[in-house]
């Protein structure tokens, strides 16, 4: 019983008034591993900083010296073009020195352990480490041994925090009023294996969105339990396999990639059946609000989870997501760099 006020307080914090002016709080996170530890003011801080970065990106020479002399290593254990290049461009726009490492998938029995790799990278002078890994939780292990900042570029099924923030940023840019509070946001597809969906749960529930996760029941496993527990803590979202109910009157529809290995695992009968029952087609999109926006974190399987004409529809903001990704990543690199020893707090007293 004594716990109740605390729970209510947490709920209140996560349902903070979105329209309120952002509070200038000191940025205290050295790493960005997941969104669960960010408060709403923290998220606002990132979005406001991203606005400034968007202005930088609009300049003829989109480059500022904020990270001059800082070595950023981008360590990817999984193939990626979009996210890796986005981080690289973001770091270079801030004048950081960038080192790219494409690592073979980690193995306990052969090759170097993740811990040794991270220590080596630090010994080579890296102050910031952007990493992607196929195992959930791997960046936490890296953060334990790395002396600088670790930025999670996606870990297993667990988290893709920069994606969660850039998706929120993109929605705010396109929704009337610049707010997602109360807006119906549908994430459609393979929720079970999606770190994008998980990170969006944290960012969108914090922003007060009416969030719906939709897909075949085999690809929603465990999310009913999360929705049931999360509601008590003010993180409300719906879980359904009824695609029509999910899309009806939606303001935002985000389709997720369906991977071929889901078929061999017996989770889906066929891509054809998935496309027929859950693919985001023009007909299905007609259930959403006329001004609804369409999103996809990429890479797309056009004709499977999203019809080609929907991907290129004027309501699609998929290329904006890519551009905004650079701004969000610049903002995060900038904020995290401020926590490095010997760096000034960005936006601190000196800036006012």
């Amino acid at each position: 019983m004594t716990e109740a006020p605390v729970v209510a307080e947490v709920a209140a914090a996560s349902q903070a008034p979105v329209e309120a002016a952002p509070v200038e709080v000191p940025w205290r996170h050295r790493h960005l591993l997941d969104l669960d530890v960010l408060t709403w003011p923290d998220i606002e801080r990132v979005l406001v900083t991203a606005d400034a970065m968007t202005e930088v990106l609009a300049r003829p020479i989109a480059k500022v010296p904020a990270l001059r002399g800082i070595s950023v290593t981008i360590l990817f254990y999984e193939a990626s073009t979009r996210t890796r290049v986005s981080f690289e461009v973001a770091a270079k726009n801030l004048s950081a020195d960038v080192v790219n490492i494409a690592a073979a998938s980690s193995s306990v029995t052969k090759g170097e352990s993740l811990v040794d790799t991270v220590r080596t990278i630090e010994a080579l002078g890296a102050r910031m480490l952007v990493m992607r890994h196929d195992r959930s939780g791997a960046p936490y292990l890296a953060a334990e041994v790395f002396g600088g900042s670790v930025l999670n570029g996606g870990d297993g099924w667990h988290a893709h925090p920069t994606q969660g923030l850039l998706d929120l940023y993109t929605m705010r840019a396109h929704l009337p009023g610049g707010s997602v509070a109360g807006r119906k946001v549908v994430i459609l597809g393979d929720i079970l294996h999606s770190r994008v969906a998980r990170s969006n749960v944290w960012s969108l529930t914090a922003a007060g969105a009416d969030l719906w996760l939709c897909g075949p029941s085999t690809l929603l496993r465990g999310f009913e339990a999360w929705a049931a527990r999360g509601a008590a803590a003010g993180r409300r979202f719906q879980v359904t396999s009824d695609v029509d109910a999910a899309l009806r009157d939606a303001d935002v529809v985000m389709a997720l990639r369906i991977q071929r290995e889901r078929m061999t695992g017996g989770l889906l009968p066929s891509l054809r059946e998935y496309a027929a029952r859950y693919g985001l087609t023009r007909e299905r999109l007609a259930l959403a609000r006329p001004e609804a926006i369409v999103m996809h974190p990429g890479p797309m399987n056009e004709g499977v989870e999203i019809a080609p004409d929907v991907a290129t529809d004027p309501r699609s903001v998929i290329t904006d997501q890519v551009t905004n990704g650079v701004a969000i990543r610049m903002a995060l690199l900038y904020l995290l760099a401020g926590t490095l020893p010997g760096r000034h707090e960005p936006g601190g007293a000196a800036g006012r």
Partner: protein
Amino acid sequence: MTATRPPVALAGGLERGAVVAELDIGGAWLVDPASGRSGPGDVVVRDGIVTAVAWLEGEEAAGIDDRGVIVAPGFIDIHAHLREPGDEDSETVASGLAAAAHGGYTTVCTMANTDPALDEPAVLARIRDAATASGSPVALLAHGAVSAGRAGEQLAALGELADAGVVGFSDDGAPVRPALLRNALAYAGTLGLPILEHAEDPTLTTGAEANEGYVATVLGLRGWPVAGEAAAVSAAIAVLADVVADVPTARLHVTHVSTGAAIERIRAARAAGLPVSCDVTPHHLAMTDEWVAGARRWAWEAVDGDGDRDPWADRALVAPPFDPACRVNPPLRRPTDAAACRAALRDGLAIAIATDHAPHHEVKKAVEFGLAATGIDGLETALGVTLAMVDAGELTLARAIEALTVGPASFLGLRLGRRVGLLEGEPADLVVFDRRASWRVDGDSLASRSRNTPLLGRELPGVVLATIAGGRLAYAAPDEG
């Protein structure tokens, strides 16, 4: 003896391994599950033999309660991994027995998943030689493998291993497929030995990293569903029912049961008269899957009306998530499953607390969560975790001691080779611990080679003052100076 509590006169200056020539424990709280009696008393040991167990009454007993110095029969662990031969970087027989003595254990049954596997008598002889060489008086018993090389194909040398003195058979670490389990139950049954089954349906747990449910969903970890254990237990019980028709002495023991669903199936099978038993581990009793997320609350703390809780909403996340020390098989479960394990322990369906002591060298744990070796150390922390349950009113002290002594002894039967209890005229086999004191689990306090526990840094209740095995000193707490 006076009415005020006299100090416990321990065997100061005695060397470990030496016969306890003279020991007087005055005015302690004795717990003797063999006789079902608990109360104030004195214990006198001379030349390794218990010469007197005196129960105090009236004025002599005044001021002595069950919150101070406790004397109980030495603990018996029917499930530990001592890693020798094959993985001596993680643990050796010597370090494992030292850990056992520090934890109050006087008998340890080591599992067969060594390298090479304990699937024929020569490996057993090697392990016994190591125990002898260690000088530890802690009795080392062993389970033989069910299958040759634990490969799950052919039966191991069950008869030869039985002749050599193994106390049971298990491929623990991996389940035995039903067709082989059927043969093993029958064959071992004629030898008078049980099969200890690691209940896991591997078709439901491929790649599993953590208990399937809320926590694994949030953390994006591959789920180990309750059905994986329940289905395996159902299949094993069905096989057992077939086997006992032909071999009435066949016996199935499901080790490290972790789910309410499996417990209900075992309960129903026992009610139907089948010879099936089970044990539970300290970690499945007291820890839950939220520990993987970074919570460190005991399983019974802060649960809601549904017996569940949300560490994110409760702000209970005090450690980083994905600590590989929390990776264990079967995984840490939900609070409701832990509660079912404690209920089974209370009502006797679970006959023993078994540690599943699983030492691992740091290099096998300091890796990505899903790649980390599974298992948690238990020999040195089992008493503290059990006392935490007692302190919380989850278990009586008497039942706790029973589950650490006569419970596992009943599983071993004559193969234990001795009687269990506070018994005059028998070699002293007992543990003395102070419930009022606590200790910090850390690298300096642990005798095991391994530091593989999420309890590192935590204060646990109950300091073992002395462990005496077979009349010889196995462990004595360092003098406070």
